[in-house]
């Protein structure tokens, strides 16, 4: 593990501490409220479960209950931002940014208003509520908006730091949170800068690029791969936009094989963002761990991660696959026939 980033020393312990990522948002919002007098919070009837409650109690005059009206949530926030506020708007990710995309596009992004959109309960790990409440497309629809920053924190510490960073960022930000308890990977000493990925584990054979709740699965996978003699590099790509391109390109050059891991549709999210960079700079064998163009369903989070192939063993399979393709490419580039063809071309 990269000792420079002060990770949780108990990370690989079987009883690793687990805390919901959304809790970090609640703590971060409270701190942001103390630090910035213009921070206000708006919520669409989910104050407790999105962890906006603490802010609402500490700053009742800076909290607006919107009701179940996500389009109003985004547009009222835009108006407040136009009058100098830094609004945080919270709901479940399927509803915001799911139901109010055009309002976010026109009144927040095109207007360039510093509204912070917090989408909680993202991913299949929402569990029993079922597919209607499991946001799997939110990063895709936010990532394509000009001026938008997209962040998926990997644990509650990172969510807290991301929330504070968003409050200080002059522009719209989307932060994706998860409902379930998630293993704690970082500590209060781990750095966080928007757009700067965090190297969790050094390796030369393959790179696992993960975000959000699945970063922990990537770490488990790396440990398992090591047993097979494969040294995996693990990157916590907490910011999906703007993507840390330099680090992605370096990973492709140095390890020659990439696996992206996200609790999101494989189209449009982290995997696509990484591919867009590599396709024009460093074409590299890639595999995509994520939702394969499907909806989720009801079940316990563990059952669903298993069913949809989002666990460490699935990452290991993907890593092996891409590692083998890399080896084939290497052999081809060394073979005399290829060299001759190259010369002719």
């Amino acid at each position: 593990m990269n000792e420079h980033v002060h990770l949780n020393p108990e990370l690989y312990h079987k009883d690793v501490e687990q805390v919901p990522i959304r809790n970090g948002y609640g703590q971060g919002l409270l701190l942001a409220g103390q630090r910035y007098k213009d921070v206000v919070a708006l919520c669409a009837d989910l104050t407790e479960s999105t962890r906006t409650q603490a802010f609402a109690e500490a700053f009742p005059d800076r909290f607006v209950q919107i009701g179940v009206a996500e389009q109003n949530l985004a547009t009222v926030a835009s108006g407040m931002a136009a009058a100098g506020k830094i609004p945080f708007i919270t709901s479940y990710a399927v509803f915001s940014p799911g139901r109010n995309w055009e309002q976010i596009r026109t009144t927040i992004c095109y207007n360039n208003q510093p509204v912070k959109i917090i989408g909680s309960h993202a991913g299949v790990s929402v569990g029993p509520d079922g597919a209607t409440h499991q946001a799997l497309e939110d990063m895709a629809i936010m990532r394509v908006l000009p001026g938008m920053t997209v962040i998926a924190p990997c644990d509650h510490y990172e969510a807290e730091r991301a929330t504070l960073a968003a409050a200080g960022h002059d522009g719209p930000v989307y932060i994706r949170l998860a409902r379930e308890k998630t293993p704690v990977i970082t500590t209060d000493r781990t750095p966080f800068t928007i757009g700067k990925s965090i190297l969790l584990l050094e390796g030369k054979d393959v790179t696992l690029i993960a975000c959000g709740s699945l970063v922990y699965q990537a770490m488990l996978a790396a440990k398992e791969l090591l047993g097979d003699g494969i040294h995996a590099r693990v990157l916590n790509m907490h910011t999906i936009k703007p993507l840390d391109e330099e680090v992605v390109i370096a990973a492709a050059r140095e390890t020659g094989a990439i696996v992206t891991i996200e609790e999101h549709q494989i189209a449009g999210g982290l995997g696509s963002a990484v591919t867009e960079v590599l396709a024009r700079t460093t074409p590299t064998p890639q595999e995509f761990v994520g939702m394969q163009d499907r909806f989720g369903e009801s079940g316990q989070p563990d059952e669903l991660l298993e069913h949809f192939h989002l666990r460490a063993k699935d990452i290991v399979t993907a890593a092996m696959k891409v590692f083998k393709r890399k080896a084939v490419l290497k052999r081809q580039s060394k073979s005399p026939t290829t060299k001759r063809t190259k010369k002719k071309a």
Partner: protein
Amino acid sequence: MTVQHMERKANEIRQDIIKMLVAAGSGHSAGPLGMADVFTALYFAILHHKPKDPDWASRDRLVLSNGHICPVLYATMAHAGYFPISELKTLRKFGTRLQGHPHRGALPGIETTSGPLGSGLSQAVGMTLAGRMDNARWHVYCLLSDGEHDAGNTWEAVLLAGKHRLSSLTAIMDRNNIQIDGPTEDVLPLESLRAKYEAFNWHVIDVDGHNIEMIINATNEARAIREKPTLILAHTIPGKGVSYMEGDFRWHGNPPGTMETETAPPKKEQAKVALQELRTLGGQIRSEHE
């Protein structure tokens, strides 16, 4: 400025609306012509604003929700001194500050980008809430179309404004009874708008949207009303001032010279006829050429 002066000003603004639409070759006619009197009253009598200092912190905020009627906003702003009148002919052209739908980042004095319907009132509510948190003295005016009351987002804002008793908010609805596909009461009946708004805890005032004195009086009444936001139902004639356009929903989204109708002159004559009617106030006064 006297009411009589403002009536003249509104007529000049209507002529500029026709000219800019003809130069652009596309854009909306009926709504802008219908709202010329309301905009003139706002920019020349009602708003606390400084055209040469559009970001003045204490200015009243004007949110145009139905962005498609922006020709009237641009023409009125130019006449009020925000930018040169000569710039109006750049409407909808490449590189212009006068985008096809108004954009906050393009032109100083535009409070928000608009066009997609149903989201302006929410933004006005947000501005009013933020102003209240800061004990600001400024007032928020939101201009709405009747057609955008088809949208749920509008009613979400109506509910929230009623809940917070936003007395610093005045909405002015362009009740011209038309939308793109036809009369509003055919597309999706909206009446009774007064009863609906009152049920949502708003104060409602009906005015003749072409009577500048009534419009000013209504906004004064709105400022005096405590504990409630106010809706001014401005009853207007779409296409007002151009006889062949008045009341005809087909002119909602078309400029003169683009469409034949039973009552309109031939395409080539349409702009000329419109300007002549406006100059002579429909034949009531002699034009400068006669």
